[in-house]
């Protein structure tokens, strides 16, 4: 229990300071700053001990505790240090300020998220992924596509397509379709490459077996190639959620129709409204995590048989 004691003492020292310095606008004197330093140190040591003790737990709630405590410790330390040194909110706002702002501007941020996540990123993602899977099927079927097209897909999947954002915004216009186009293109190439690998890296023995049963090409795809490709496809789909969010937000930096998380971040960063910027980042992260989680959930439903999900 020594870890918990240290952790609590560390938090108490910092929180006591935060409460005491809540209304002040001066830099805290050395003594108080040292007490924060001690608090940070104690909580860090305590956290290490607690995490060490919980390392082998099988209870998922307890297993998550060290991560949650780390976040809490970082937030408390940031709050205390920012207040102690009176860092202006126009540079780095305190966590409490960001949370209060998140609450007051929640409606507008939700509208922004609707525009950025559901319209731009999701539409682009769905288009890019479906086209990608379709292309991969064709490429795996026709050798001339594999020779003529696949090298370029591999090449493009390794360059940052987001650099195309300004070009696409200029070509397609400032409304949401230009951002959806950016997202579609960014997710398309990794999906093509991964799906193709999944469809073709099939065990030769299985393929021989199918052929000896005189399975048609359709049947080979349905019963062998597609199941084999699913884990590869889902890897690309999960990677794609992140790429689509990045594409949508960065795309809005190059022109936006008055809405969107990227628009909000750009406008408020230029006005030193960093509390709103951080609030928008929190909303974007939450949306990204939920989305990633959904894809992972579908993956488990469809590929539960795969070796990576087997319980030891």
């Amino acid at each position, binding site marked *: 229990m020594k870890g918990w004691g240290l952790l609590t003492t560390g938090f108490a020292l910092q929180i006591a300071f935060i409460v005491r310095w809540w209304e002040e606008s001066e830099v805290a004197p050395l003594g108080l700053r040292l007490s924060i330093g001690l608090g940070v140190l104690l909580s860090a040591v305590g956290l290490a001990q607690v995490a060490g003790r919980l390392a082998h737990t099988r209870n998922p709630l307890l297993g998550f505790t060290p991560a949650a405590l780390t976040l809490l410790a970082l937030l408390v330390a940031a709050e205390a240090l920012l207040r102690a040194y009176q860092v*202006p909110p126009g540079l780095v706002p305190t966590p409490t300020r960001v949370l209060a702002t998140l609450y007051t501007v929640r409606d507008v941020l939700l509208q922004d998220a609707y525009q950025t996540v559901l319209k731009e990123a999701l539409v682009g993602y769905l288009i890019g992924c479906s086209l990608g899977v379709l292309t991969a099927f064709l490429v795996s079927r026709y050798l001339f596509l594999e020779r003529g097209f696949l090298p370029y897909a591999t090449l493009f999947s390794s360059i940052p397509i987001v650099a195309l954002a300004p070009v696409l915004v*200029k070509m397609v216009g*400032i409304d949401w379709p230009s951002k959806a186009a950016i997202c579609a293109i960014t997710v398309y190439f990794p999906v093509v490459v991964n799906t193709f690998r999944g469809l073709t890296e099939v065990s030769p023995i299985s393929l021989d077996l199918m052929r000896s049963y005189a399975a048609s090409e359709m049947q080979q795809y349905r019963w062998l190639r597609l199941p084999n490709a699913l884990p590869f496809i889902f890897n690309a789909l999960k990677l794609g959620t992140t790429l689509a969010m990045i594409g949508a937000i960065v795309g809005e930096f190059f022109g*936006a129709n008055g809405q969107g998380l990227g628009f909000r971040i*750009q406008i408020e960063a*230029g*006005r030193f409204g960093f509390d709103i910027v951080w609030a928008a980042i929190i909303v974007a992260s939450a949306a990204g995590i939920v989305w990633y989680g959904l894809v992972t959930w579908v993956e488990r439903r469809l590929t539960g048989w795969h070796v990576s999900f087997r319980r030891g």
Partner: protein
Amino acid sequence: MKKWSVFAVLALFVLGSLAGAQQNLVKVNLQLKWFPQAQFAGFFVAKERGFYRAQGLDVTLLPIGDQSPIQMVQSGAADFGTTWIADLLTARERGIPVVHIAQIFQRSGFTLVALKSTGIKDICRDMKGKSVGVWPSGNEYPAVALFRKCGLTSSLDPRATNPDVTAVTYPFDPALVFPDKVQLVSAMIYNEVNQIAGLGYDESKVDIFKLADLGINLLEDLLFTTERVLNNRNFKGSGLTGRQVAARLIRATLQGWNWAVANQAETVEKYVLPVCGNTCKGSGTRADAKEHQTWQMAEVAKLYNAGATTKGWAGFLVPADYQASVRLLREQGILTRDPPAATVDYGPWELATGKRARDWR
């Protein structure tokens, strides 16, 4: 052999004295508010005609796109910068210790342009439900002030869920959004107005709403720095204080501006066009860089040669103008309190010009 060594010694001596002269110059980074164009003619003249060097300064003029010059100066990437009053004061309110040290333009050049065919006559009444093109990074404040003055909410306001006016951001070129996506577009009287005309929408087809005429006379291009620079006792090890460097910078800059305004054709030809690339071009039928910059120089000269400048007080921030800008921003809720007195420092300007701010009539 002997001849060569004499040459060598002479060459070394010359090189040494040149290097010495270089070393004595104080390196100063000045952040402009935009890409090079005639808007900054005075700065280019001061640099290229050696006015800065005569003051012992080696000034680097830094261009910028859609970012805030305040961020560059605040972070120390630049020592001084040019920006507008609204973003300066809002940054100050959010704790960034920026200080106004000289006012270059004495009048606002911000306009909103609409096609006559959209039927916008009374801008406050007719703007509701419309889309307005704005530039981000603090350049949207004049438009925001107008929306607020008209009692309209906009999508730039993070608390308005159902805004009356949709603000559309776009990269640089008004042709990207005007007139298809927005009914009104931000346009500087010295730049975009001519670009829009070049696209086929000249004065006969558009209405130009000057914000100054609508009661939004927010001061524009000004010189600023941070308290950290001003209070520096030994600026970059030069032996000069931050204030002295600021004063020398102001003196040479104003000298540059006076020269530019008096010799406009030569300024554009020799000092603007050589430093500017693509961004100096106009649009459509008025794309030619030289013509566009010549026109811009004339328009910019009008903003410089106004108010205090005409009374021989170039660079002076007229207290009444400043108070009017502050009052306007407070009335429209863009500022929540009066900026602290330290936001404006007349000291460097007084040192530069030998005048005293309190003698202003």
